[in-house]
Structure formats: structure tokens, C-alpha cells
């Protein structure tokens, strides 16, 4: 009983921080960031205690913490309840842990911004919503968090309300996610219809007994997957994520690393017992994941905005995670989620540190040579780059190779695509790092780069430690064999595995490679990384020529440089026609037709009135005459017809 109280507490602390900053932020202007950060760290602390009290390695059963009953309509019953198990605690720690570091960093980054209280209020609210998403005991509370992070992303991306591109980007993120959410809502409704409950434990229990569940399950899985695609920015819903860079850099880090984009993966992991039963949907998830990973990596190669490169890299890494999820290797996907949270937060905060020191310069072509002026940022950033590229012995090496290994089981083609993507990742990440930190300085003459304050560098150092060492939670047998994470997650996925074994259509058999094969695959991906680095080093790094503008590329290069014209495609196929139709309705139907009718009706009564009011002379005699005339007419009518 004692520690269960911690769960509502850890959820409510960020909300309290948000309300405090929203209501009284203007009175403690300077310390708004400290308040927000304290509440965030307090939430993290509560999370750590709950984690330790739960004993995740021994405890098999999820713990339900019922906060209060919420909806009760007939048989439909929803409580605001939290499910505490290995998965939700894992996510909670990542979200509050990395989120808190980003809060701390924001104190330095947002210093002097007049909207700092508003910023921290939103940031705390984001944590509040995200914690509901991952701790939810049922689909409705999850959906509350799901929409909550959508709202907060809208508020945060459009934080600089006076910037038009920020406002547009926030609207784009919101609308793209709403489109995907339609599928999500359909999935929730279908699940309720099939199983008669929205609670995760009940769904898991009752699923095999549900009527028509064999026929309906693929549809349910597809619905949830489309919802996940929206949040996790999979092709073709990825368009919002790069544009979301218009928000302040800590926001990008938060959305990209710890929250929002991981929601889709979390959903699939949470509903793993649905997804393991439909391998055909799993196949499509792998396809889309592989494609997204490759596709986004090629775009990343051609970007010149430091944050845009990282944004496409996020899309690409999420593609990897979806490959793992589709292949049924949930632990591998969550492992990469964890390591990615560390190194992507590190990279974003590092780029923020650069942007900060160069006074809001984001163009790689106007950086260079920052190595000597920003030592901490340079070393941590380099470490992040090595980790994301998958260089041993850093975290990305273990998590990415695990996914590639699982993809190999699924089909060697996916493995090959993954290796090519790893090659591209190394290429663009070193391009980014080396362009920004080495070579001749191309910084504008009036800007003097300097290292950021400790509130910004401390999170960088902590995240760098995480990026370096978090990989040791799951090490393949050939390299020592640590399976802490595997054992940790085993209870969460046991039920799904049981169902799939019973139904004999499993693709999630727990096969392991022989150590020699494992090593061979690892060497292959390592080769790709070395090749990526080598090609960049030999052919591009030595040239002092600056990368061209995106529009300068011609021929086939124009495709990735212009993001494969996906935005233009959406613009022409959906937005354009919709705008024309709306314009037709507003200009022709409303202004010409409807207004004509309404204004015409007004004109007619006005015209009639202008004739009739001539009768109103105001002269007594005229009225008397009319009365007499009327009386005579009525009387004659009566006389003529006979009374």
C-alpha cells in the first residue's frame, strides 16, 4: 500500500508545476525554470522509488493503482487507473529522467526569454500528459495522454507565436496527428466491441474468447498501427516531425527523444498480445519501418540545417524501432528506444548548445571550427554521434545490431536495407559533426562562440554517460551475454507469446543465432559504419567547399534534397484541392448565392416598405378617410353578399 500512493503523486507533480507556473509564473519570472525543473525532478524521484519498490526483476504481476472512477455508462466503465509493470516503469523513468535533464538544460537555454514561465508550464504539462500515456491502465486514459501530448506539442512547437513558420509547424503537427488518431479511435472502439472492455489486463485475458476475433484482429492491429505511425512519424505521417524543429531546441529534444515519438512504439509494446497474433500486419510494420528508416536517412544526407538533419535521423531511427516491433522483437525495439532517448537527447541538446552560442544560427554552412571554443559540447556531441552511428562499444552498437539481427530472421532483405541505412546514418552524422565542429570557422565575424553555462553542459555530460553505457543492458552472447533487459521485460510479453504459441502462427519464436553468425552480422554492420565514415572522410571532409543549397541539386539528387516532394505531394493532392473547394464555397456559394438570397430578401422588404410608408402621412384627415373608406367597403361587401 505504501508505495502505490507514489504513482498518482508522480503523475500529479508535473501538473502541479505546470499550474504553479501558469498561475504565478509572472511573479517569479527569474526562477520559473527552477520551479518547473524541481517538480520534474521530484516526479523522477518518485518514479525511481516506485521502481525500486516494485522489484521489477522478481515481480511478475502488473500492479493496478486505481485513482478514481471516471466514466460509467451502462456496461462501459472507465477508471482513472494506472498500471504499474515493467513496461510502464521503464517508460516512466525514461520520460521523467531525460525530461528532467531537458528541464534543467532549458533553464540555461531559455534564460531571458520573456515567456519562460509559459514555456516551463507547457513543458511540465507535457510530462503530465506523457505519464498518463505510459501509465494508463486502459485505452481511454491512454488516449487522454495521447491527445494531451498532441496538445502540448502544438503549444510548444508554436511557442514563438509571432513566428509564422512556428505557428504553421505546430498546426501541421497537430493536424497530421489528428488524421492518424482517427484510426486510433476506431481501434479503441473496435477493441471495446470485440472484448467488452478497454482495460489492458482484461483485453489480454478475454481476447482469445472474443467472438470474430480472428477476423477482426488484423483490422484492430492496423488501426492501432496507423495511430502509432502518426505519433511516431512513420512514412507518410513523418512530415510533421522535421517541421517541428521550428520550436525551441529543448522542445525538439523532448519531443524527439523521450516523449511523443516513442508513444507509437509504446502502444505496440503495450498491445503486443494483439500484434503477435497477426504476423501479416507485422510484415507490413517491418516494411514501413525499413522504408522509413532508409528514406529518412537519404533525406538527412542533404539537409543543411543542423536540427533538420537530427530530425530526419529521428525518423530514421524510429523506423528501426518499428522494424523490431513488426518482427515481434519488442525487447529489441524498447532497447533501441532507451539508447536512442539518451543519444538523441544528447545530440539535440548539443546542437542547441551550438545554436545558443552562435546566437540562433542553425545553418551548418555558417559553423565550423567550434571544437576549440566549446570543448564539453564537442566531446559529448562526438560521443553521441558515435553512439547513433552504432560504433562499438557505445550504446547504439548493441541496440541497432540487435534490431538488425531480428530483421535478418524476418528476411535478409530487411537486414540489407538496415545495413545500408546504418551506412547513411554514419555518413550524415559525421558530416554534421565535422562540419559544425572542425575545419575552418565560417562563423559570422560579429559572433563569438563560447561554451554554454553549467545548466546546459551538465545534462550533456549525464546524457553522454547514458549514451555510452546504456548499451550494456543487453549484450549478445558472442560479446559477453548480458540479458538484464530481456529478463526484465519477460513478464510483459509472456502472455502474448503464450497466445501465439497456442495459435501456432507465431513469428516470434525466440530463436537465437549461433555466436559466430552473430559476430558476422555485427561485423557486416560495423563495415557499413566504417564505410560511411571513410567515404565522408576521404571524399567530402577534406574539401573546403561548402555544401550547396537544397535547391542547387539537380537530377536524381534533387529527390532526397527536396525530401522526395512529399510535402508538395500532400500540398497538391490534399491541401490544394481542399483549399480550392473551400474557396469555391466561400467566394461563390456563400458570397454570391447565399448572400444574394439573404440580402435580396432584405432589399424586397425595404422596397415594399418604401412604397407603403407613403400612406403614413401623419395627417388625421387621411386616416379618417381611410377608416371611412374601409368601413364603406366592408359594409358594401356584407350588403352585396347578404348578411
Amino acid at each position, binding site marked *: 500500500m505504501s508505495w502505490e500512493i507514489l504513482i498518482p503523486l508522480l503523475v500529479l507533480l508535473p501538473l502541479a508545476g505546470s499550474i504553479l507556473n501558469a498561475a504565478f509564473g509572472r511573479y517569479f519570472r527569474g526562477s520559473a525554470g527552477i520551479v518547473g525543473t524541481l517538480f520534474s525532478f521530484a516526479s523522477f524521484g518518485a518514479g525511481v522509488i516506485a521502481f525500486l519498490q516494485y522489484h521489477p526483476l522478481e515481480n511478475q504481476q502488473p500492479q493496478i493503482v486505481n485513482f478514481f472512477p471516471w466514466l460509467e455508462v451502462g456496461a462501459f466503465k472507465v477508471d482513472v487507473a494506472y498500471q504499474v509493470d515493467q513496461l510502464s516503469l521503464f517508460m516512466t523513468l525514461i520520460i521523467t529522467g531525460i525530461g528532467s535533464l531537458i528541464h534543467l538544460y532549458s533553464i540555461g537555454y531559455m534564460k531571458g526569454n520573456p515567456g519562460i514561465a509559459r514555456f516551463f508550464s507547457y513543458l511540465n504539462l507535457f510530462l503530465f500528459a506523457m505519464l498518463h500515456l505510459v501509465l494508463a491502465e486502459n485505452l481511454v486514459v491512454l488516449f487522454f495522454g495521447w491527445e494531451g501530448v498532441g496538445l502540448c506539442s502544438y503549444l510548444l512547437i508554436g511557442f514563438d507565436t509571432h513566428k509564422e513558420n512556428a505557428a504553421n509547424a505546430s498546426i501541421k503537427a497537430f493536424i497530421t496527428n489528428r488524421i492518424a488518431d482517427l484510426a486510433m479511435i476506431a481501434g479503441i472502439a473496435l477493441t471495446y466491441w470485440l472484448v467488452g472492455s478497454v482495460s489492458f489486463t482484461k483485453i489480454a485475458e478475454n481476447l482469445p474468447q472474443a467472438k470474430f476475433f480472428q477476423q477482426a484482429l488484423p483490422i484492430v492491429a492496423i488501426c492501432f498501427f496507423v495511430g502509432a505511425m502518426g505519433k511516431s512519424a512513420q512514412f507518410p505521417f513523418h512530415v510533421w516531425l522535421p517541421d517541428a524543429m521550428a520550436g525551441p531546441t529543448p522542445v525538439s529534444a523532448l519531443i524527439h527523444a523521450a516523449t511523443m515519438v516513442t508513444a507509437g512504439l509504446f502502444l505496440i509494446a503495450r498491445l503486443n498480445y494483439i500484434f503477435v497474433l497477426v504476423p501479416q500486419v507485422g510484415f507490413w510494420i517491418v516494411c514501413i519501418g525499413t522504408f522509413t528508416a532508409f528514406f529518412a536517412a537519404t533525406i538527412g544526407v542533404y539537409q543543411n540545417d543542423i536540427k533538420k538533419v537530427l530530425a530526419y535521423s529521428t525518423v530514421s531511427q524510429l523506423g528501426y524501432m518499428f522494424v523490431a516491433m513488426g518482427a515481434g522483437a519488442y525487447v529489441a525495439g524498447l532497447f533501441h528506444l532507451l539508447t536512442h532517448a539518451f543519444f538523441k537527447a544528447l545530440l539535440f541538446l548539443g546542437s542547441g548548445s551550438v545554436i545558443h552560442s552562435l546566437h540562433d544560427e542553425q545553418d551548418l554552412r555558417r559553423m565550423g571550427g567550434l571544437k576549440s571554443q566549446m570543448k564539453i559540447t564537442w566531446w559529448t556531441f562526438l560521443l553521441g554521434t558515435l553512439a547513433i552511428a552504432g560504433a562499438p562499444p557505445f550504446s547504439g552498437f548493441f541496440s541497432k545490431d540487435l534490431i538488425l539481427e531480428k530483421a535478418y530472421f524476418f528476411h535478409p532483405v530487411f537486414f540489407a536495407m538496415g545495413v545500408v541505412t546504418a551506412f547513411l546514418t554514419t555518413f550524415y552524422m559525421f558530416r554534421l559533426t565535422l562540419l559544425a565542429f572542425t575545419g575552418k570557422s565560417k562563423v559570422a565575424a560579429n559572433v563569438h562562440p563560447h561554451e554554454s553555462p553549467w545548466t546546459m553542459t551538465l545534462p550533456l555530460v549525464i546524457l553522454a554517460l547514458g549514451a555510452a553505457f546504456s548499451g550494456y543492458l543487453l549484450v549478445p552472447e558472442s560479446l559477453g551475454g548480458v540479458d538484464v533487459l530481456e529478463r526484465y521485460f519477460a513478464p510483459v510479453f509472456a502472455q502474448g507469446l503464450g497466445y501465439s504459441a497456442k495459435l501456432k502462427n507465431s513469428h516470434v519464436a525466440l530463436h537465437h543465432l549461433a555466436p559466430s553468425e552473430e559476430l558476422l552480422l555485427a561485423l557486416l554492420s560495423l563495415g557499413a559504419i566504417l564505410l560511411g565514415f571513410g567515404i565522408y572522410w576521404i571524399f567530402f571532409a577534406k574539401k573546403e567547399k561548402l555544401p550547396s543549397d537544397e535547391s542547387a541539386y539537380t537530377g536524381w539528387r534533387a529527390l532526397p534534397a527536396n525530401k522526395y516532394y512529399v510535402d508538395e505531394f500532400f500540398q497538391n493532392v490534399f491541401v490544394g484541392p481542399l483549399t480550392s473547394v473551400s474557396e469555391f464555397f466561400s467566394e461563390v456559394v456563400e458570397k454570391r448565392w447565399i448572400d444574394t438570397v439573404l440580402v435580396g430578401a432584405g432589399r424586397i422588404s425595404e422596397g415594399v416598405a418604401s412604397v407603403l410608408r407613403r400612406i*403614413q*402621412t401623419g395627417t388625421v*384627415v387621411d386616416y379618417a378617410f381611410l377608416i371611412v373608406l374601409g368601413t364603406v367597403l366592408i359594409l358594401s361587401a356584407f350588403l352585396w353578399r347578404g348578411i
Partner: protein
Amino acid sequence: MNPGVLKPMIAGIPVEYLLILACIVFSIGVAGVLFRRSAVIIFMCIELMLNSVNLVFVVFSKSLQQVQGEVVVFFVMAIAAAEAAIGLALVVAIHRKKKTSFVDEMNLMKW
């Protein structure tokens, strides 16, 4: 008494004659209201119309041998007196303000 049966003569004068007389008086009144401009004369013409109506009431009352008609006449007289008092007061008030009692010139309420 035998209500409903019309006596054709009243004091030796046929009822029709009396009704025709009332009609003539009423028409004179109407014509006066419509064609004269002085508010005072219009009031006098209204009195003519009211009295012609009174005459009709009395004639029918006698002819039908019922008393209700004559009772109504008293009411009409009372109302006519009250109306004349108020109406003349208004005319005097307007005359003070506009220095006229011609009704065509009292058209302030026009559109």
C-alpha cells in the same frame, strides 16, 4: 311586451324616415370630419356622428319596445362629453404651441 316584433311607426312617423334622417346626419358628420380643417369643427362633426348613432339606438329601442338601446345612449353621451373635454384641451394645448388648430399642420408624427 313582445320583443322581436318591429313597430313600423313611432309617434306616427315611419321608422324608415327616422333611419334615413340618421343616415343623412351621419353623412354630414363624416363629410365634415373629412373635409374641414379646423380641429374644433371636426370635433363638432364627430358629435353629429355620435348623435346620429344615438338617434338610431333610440329609434330601434322604441321600435322593438326594449330599453337597452336607450341605456346605451346615456353611455355614448357620457363618453362623448369626456372625449370633447380631453380633445378640446389637446386642441388648446396644440394651439398654444403651434399657433394653429388646422389638422393638416399637425403632422409631426409623419414618417
